[in-house]
C-alpha cells in the first residue's frame, strides 16, 4: 500500500475531502451532546407505558391492524404519468417477438451511423 494510512484517509485530489473517521467521530460527539444537553428543550411529558406508544390511527381509536398497501403509494405520480406508463406497459408485456425486434432496431440504427460516416 503506497503511502501512509493518513494519506489514504485524506484524499484531496479526488476533489472532495473524505474523512470517514472524522465524520463518524463528529456524529458520535453530536449524539452525546444531544443526549446529555439538548433533550431539555423538548417536551418531556412522554412516558413509555401510556397509550402514547400506540400508533396514532388518525382518530379511529379501535385496534386497527392495517398498513398502507404498497400499491397505492405514489398514486399521484402514477396518475400524472399515465400516458407514459401505458406505453411502457405495452413494451414490457412479455411478447418475445418484441424483445427480439428491439435488438434488430438498435443494430439497424448503428448501421445507419456507420453508413452516415459518423461512427
Amino acid at each position, binding site marked *: 500500500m503506497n503511502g501512509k494510512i493518513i494519506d489514504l484517509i485524506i484524499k484531496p485530489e479526488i476533489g472532495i475531502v473524505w474523512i470517514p473517521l472524522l465524520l463518524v467521530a463528529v456524529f458520535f460527539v453530536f449524539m452525546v451532546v444531544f443526549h446529555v444537553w439538548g433533550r431539555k428543550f423538548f417536551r418531556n411529558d412522554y412516558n413509555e407505558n401510556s397509550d402514547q406508544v400506540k400508533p396514532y390511527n388518525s382518530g379511529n381509536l379501535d385496534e386497527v391492524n392495517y398498513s398502507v398497501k404498497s*400499491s397505492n403509494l405514489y398514486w399521484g405520480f*402514477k396518475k400524472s404519468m399515465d400516458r407514459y406508463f401505458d406505453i411502457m*406497459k405495452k413494451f*414490457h*408485456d*412479455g*411478447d*418475445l*417477438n418484441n424483445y*427480439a*425486434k428491439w435488438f*434488430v432496431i438498435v443494430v439497424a440504427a448503428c448501421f445507419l451511423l456507420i453508413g452516415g460516416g459518423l461512427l
Partner: protein
Amino acid sequence: MLSIFLYVTVVSLLILSITSVIYKRNLIKLVIALNIAESSVNLFFITLAYRPDSTAPIFTLAPALQELRMVLPSPQALILTNIVIGFATTALMLVLAVITYKNNGTLDIRKLKGVEDHD
C-alpha cells in the same frame, strides 16, 4: 466468382432467421429459426477457410504433389465446437418449450404472456 453465392446465402439465411424470430409465434418454430442462424454462421466460417484447388488439411494419403496446398484448419476446428453448442442450445430450448407447454397448455407467444398483470 464462386464465393459470392456462398456469402449471399450466409447473409440471406441470417436475415431470414432473424425475421422469422420476430414474426413467427410458435416456440418450436423459433428454435428451427435459431438453428438456421447457427448454420449460416458455420457456413460463413467454412467459406472463409476455403482456398481453391487445395485439399483438406489431412496428411494421411494426401496427394503427394510437390506444391501441396491445403485449406485453412482453424475455422473448421471452431465450427466443430459451434455445431455441438448449437445442438446443446436446441436441446435445452426444446425441453424448456415442452415444459412450458405442460404448464400453460399452449406454445403460442401471444397467449403465453409470462407476465402477471402490472400494478
